[in-house]
């Protein structure tokens, strides 16, 4: 097919993200391997790539890298990773016009400049270039968060089209932005919510495009299908901004280092059944922690209350401090420990998952603490009762100090 200049493998395969990604890779390689000879060796190429970004990538000087094909016969329309003809599309389904500046390429450029700033300072001995790149990156981040953010939708536009309009479809590209670090802190949570929300997350992978967009097609090349590499970058992005739980699970044996680094959980034996077993264990451990809290807190609160009331109103202490310590030691150790051996409850796997932000003591737990607190006067009642009993049984001791 290539020999006959047929797509998709024609000799002309435009790409405007390979250049910044080459710089990102160069820095990443050095970080992982410590082999800085390669960084020195490729200094000229890296500088040329930086020049390309500013002089050729940014065609109209608006500060963003955009692309437009010149070969209308066999050239590829979209020169970003989503390189199918219909990938850059508005929410209502209309195609974006050219030249197009997709958001993730701006993220790559920002990242490339920041990384090259380090390389320039540490390996090329060019602190002037380093400061310039740092300054450009900082400015770019500011501009980008202003020009690409869609406040009413709370996510970043997929691209700016030929007329500089925001292409307003929700796509996985916002995960690439988190990976690059170009997202302002105050916008990261909204991005993370979108990425793991039902429109983008299918349940076993992140879609390339949200399922309620005009351009969505569940089997479209870049407008719905789930891509492993895309998900890797999304997961790394979530990790970058501290959303480890959202980043998900990695395979411990066959999984890549990248996924293991990003994941909130690593599956050491690559066995999905382990997840179910772990969830079961985890739920029971959580239940038992909660039971232990619900067992210990109410009694502690009750004891504290009894002492507080006695001190406040000048009563004789119903129980001394060292006795309280004794009670706590005996009951927390001998009884509290028993709770940690509680077996799985029969319906533990039938319950809905608990919300990640659920407090360990819920409103219901507080209620339990309160009713036991009402039980606290029982202590006084017990004393009074004993008074009566002691009287009636003539147990009062002649040497009593009372």
């Amino acid at each position, binding site marked *: 097919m290539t020999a006959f200049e047929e797509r998709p493998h024609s000799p002309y395969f435009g790409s405007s993200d390979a250049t910044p990604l080459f710089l990102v890779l160069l820095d990443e390689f050095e970080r992982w391997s410590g082999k800085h000879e390669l960084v020195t060796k490729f200094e000229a190429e890296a500088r040329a790539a930086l020049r390309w970004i500013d002089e050729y990538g940014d065609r109209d000087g608006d500060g963003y890298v955009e692309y437009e094909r010149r070969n209308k016969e066999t050239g590829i329309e979209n020169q970003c990773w989503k390189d199918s003809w219909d990938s850059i599309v508005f929410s209502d389904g209309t195609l974006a016009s050219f030249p197009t500046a997709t958001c993730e390429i701006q993220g790559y450029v920002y990242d490339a400049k920041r990384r090259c700033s380090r390389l320039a300072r540490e390996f090329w001995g060019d602190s002037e270039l380093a400061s310039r790149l740092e300054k450009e990156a900082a400015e770019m981040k500011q501009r980008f968060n202003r020009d690409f953010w869609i406040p009413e939708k709370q996510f970043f536009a997929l691209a700016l089209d030929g007329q500089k309009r925001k292409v307003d479809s929700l796509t996985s590209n916002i995960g690439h932005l988190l990976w690059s670090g170009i997202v302002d802190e105050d916008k990261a949570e909204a991005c993370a919510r979108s990425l793991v929300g039902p429109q983008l997350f299918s349940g076993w992978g992140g879609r390339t495009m949200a399922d309620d967009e005009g351009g969505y097609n569940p089997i479209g090349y870049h407008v719905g299908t789930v891509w492993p590499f895309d998900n890797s970058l999304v997961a790394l992005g979530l990790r970058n901004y501290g959303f480890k739980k959202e980043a998900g699970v990695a395979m411990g044996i066959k999984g890549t280092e990248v996924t293991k680094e990003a994941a909130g959980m690593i599956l050491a034996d690559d066995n999905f059944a382990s997840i179910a077993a772990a969830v079961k264990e985890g739920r029971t451990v959580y239940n038992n922690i909660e039971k232990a809290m619900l067992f210990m807190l109410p009694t502690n609160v009750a004891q504290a209350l009894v002492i507080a009331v006695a001190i406040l109103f000048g009563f004789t202490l119903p129980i001394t401090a060292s006795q309280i310590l004794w009670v706590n030691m005996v*009951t927390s150790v001998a009884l509290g420990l028993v709770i940690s051996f509680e077996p799985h409850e029969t319906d533990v796997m039938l319950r*809905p998952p608990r919300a990640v932000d659920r407090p360990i003591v819920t409103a219901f737990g507080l209620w339990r603490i309160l009713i036991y607190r009402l039980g606290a006067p029982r202590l006084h009642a017990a*004393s009074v009762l004993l008074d009566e009993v002691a009287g009636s049984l003539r147990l009062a001791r002649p040497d009593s100090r009372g």
Partner: protein
Amino acid sequence: MKSQGASDSLARTVAVNAITIGQIFYLLNSRYLLDSSLSLKAHMGNKYLPLGIAAVILLQLVFTYTTPFQAMFFNEAIPLRIWPWLLAGGVVFFLVVECEKLIIRSSDSLRRSVTAVEAGT
């Protein structure tokens, strides 16, 4: 105590044992958040449960009746006839908590809202 002439230290020793007995019964309550703790079968699953309770009983007897502990904590030996009252107090509180569970279980809306609160939603 004072009106009948019983000593403060006896009252305190009784109070400590009242709390501890209450704790043992409350432990039985706490093993199930909403389900009934009212059968023997409900307490068969955890083999450390009888061990824990036995340990507490033993420790409390040592605490109440041995001379070194009485000296250390200013305890006084509790006359045997007091114990049934303390046990009864523990049972009453146990039944109160079980009643609360029963009320929640028997009302659909209460049960649903507690389950929702417990799921954190």
